[in-house]
């Protein structure tokens, strides 16, 4: 992409629709976007008359995070929560990937399963808690099950859509080269959809984390979501902040990991230079 100079009368490309900007400007703006709310938060919490119970400052939250890590079980909470989220999400993926592949490839399977999935995905995962407790119990399985319910039905539909987006010409070209149905799925549809599928896994991982607090409503005595819920009971606002920020931070790290993997796994997506 070349910066469109001259034609725009030398004006900065900053406000040109869809025009690429200088990478340094990009990173500065990104940093500003992250720091500005932090600054605003710091300012607001230091104002006179603002009760720390309502709005603890960044320093309070940081020190609470520190004491959580040193005196309490922050590492353990992070580990158990990450395990629950990843387990629920992975269980979804293991079933949703093949199922979505079939829904996206065969109209008959689509007709059979897609309206049903569409119906179920509007049901709130929280409302399933009593049923899950009844059927799965209150052990680890129940937390995993809630995260599974929250992510699975969306994931199936997204996988099916990724599969349907494989250009028909790619499939038909294989047909005219004599490929069998199995070969088309294995050698065309799956490799063609892979980048989109990895993106779907990344996005649904984000959703899985948003169901963590819900999942740890179920008779938990550990985990980040549980810590937030317990802090709520004792009005430890700074700990609520710390828990929420911790979940956000883990999410950000995992998301960046997925993006890195995407770049490494699909170098052919980079266009012409």
């Amino acid at each position, binding site marked *: 992409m070349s910066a469109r100079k001259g034609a725009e009368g030398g004006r900065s490309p900053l406000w040109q629709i869809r025009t690429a900007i200088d990478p340094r400007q990009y990173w500065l703006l990104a940093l500003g976007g992250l720091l500005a709310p932090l600054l605003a938060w710091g300012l607001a919490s230091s104002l006179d008359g603002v009760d720390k119970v309502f709005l603890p400052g960044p320093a309070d939250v940081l020190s609470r995070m520190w004491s959580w890590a040193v005196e309490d079980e922050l590492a353990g909470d992070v580990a158990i929560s990450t395990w629950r989220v990843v387990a629920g999400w992975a269980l979804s993926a293991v079933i949703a990937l093949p199922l979505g592949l079939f829904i996206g490839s065969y109209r008959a399977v689509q007709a059979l399963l897609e309206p049903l999935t569409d119906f179920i995905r509007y049901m709130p995962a929280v409302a399933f808690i009593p049923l899950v407790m009844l059927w799965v119990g209150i052990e680890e399985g129940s937390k995993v099950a809630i995260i599974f319910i929250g992510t699975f039905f969306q994931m199936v539909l997204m996988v099916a859509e990724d599969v349907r987006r494989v*250009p028909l*010409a*790619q499939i*038909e*070209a*294989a*047909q*005219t*080269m*004599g*490929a*069998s149905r199995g*070969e088309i799925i294995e*050698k*065309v549809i799956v*490799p*063609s959809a*892979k980048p989109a599928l990895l993106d779907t896994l990344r996005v649904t991982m984000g959703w899985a984390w948003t169901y963590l607090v819900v999942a740890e409503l179920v008779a938990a005595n550990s985990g980040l979501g549980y810590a937030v819920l317990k802090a709520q009971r004792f009005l430890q606002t700074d700990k609520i902040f710390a828990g929420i920020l911790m979940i956000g931070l883990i999410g950000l790290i995992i998301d960046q990991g997925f993006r890195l993997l995407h770049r490494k796994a*699909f*170098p*052919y*997506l*980079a*266009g*012409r*230079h």
Partner: protein
Amino acid sequence: MGANIEIRDAFKTFGHGPRAIQALEKASLDIRPNEFVTFVGASGCGKSTLLRMIGGLESLSSGSIAVNGQPITGPGVDRAMVFQHYSLYPWLTVLDNIRFCRQLKAHTRDRTSADVEKASGRADALIRLMGLSHVAHAYPNQLSGGMQQRVAIARALMSRPPILLMDEPFGALDAQTREVMHDLIRHVHRIEGSTIVFVTHDVEEAIYLGQRIVLMAPRPGRIDTLYDVPLPAERHQDMKLAPEFLALKRGILERIRETSGMKTDLEQLARLSAAAADLET
């Protein structure tokens, strides 16, 4: 090399009942072995539908299409197809795209070392023929549209198909690239000896490439007129300005306007501008 194609009363409707759309009225046509036939016509004339029916990608509502006397029932390795775009596999290099069919069971029945050697020689030969040597290990996304279509053609030729079906393969290319591709595909026709059926909406392209032109008309899609192209087998770009070329082009364009209803549109436009001129005076 090259196979004959017999199209008998090929008929196609899409949909059912009163809302069914007739895509192709009973069409019959014989295409000779090693012939280069171009289908031309306004959009909706069924030219792509007929090509896809030959390729086995579209079923016939009635009638039949036979290749060397064998009725076709679906896609087959004897009929390779080149699409307008998005048919290459972006995760494979140029070379692996061209060799793609070697991964398929349909092409690996006789796997002696001599066969494998012959196939790899074939891939190399196609890469040289298509002028792709310097990009053999690049990915399709790194190539221009013209180069991508060269890869698509090479891939289609890999298994030495007796019939090559081309569905507006140069429709998305710029005019200069298209001229180069025209001479390239004529060269391919000469040395490969495949029967080529080529669909286009560009009349000049249809004349320059084809030995015979099948003009199709819309509503309902049908074969309207057949033209023999009065040009020698050896062709060069200057011929596009020859009187017989221009006369044929004029005749075909005229017929397309008549059959597509474009003529009445133009007449109406003339009446409207005349009326507007009256208002001004």
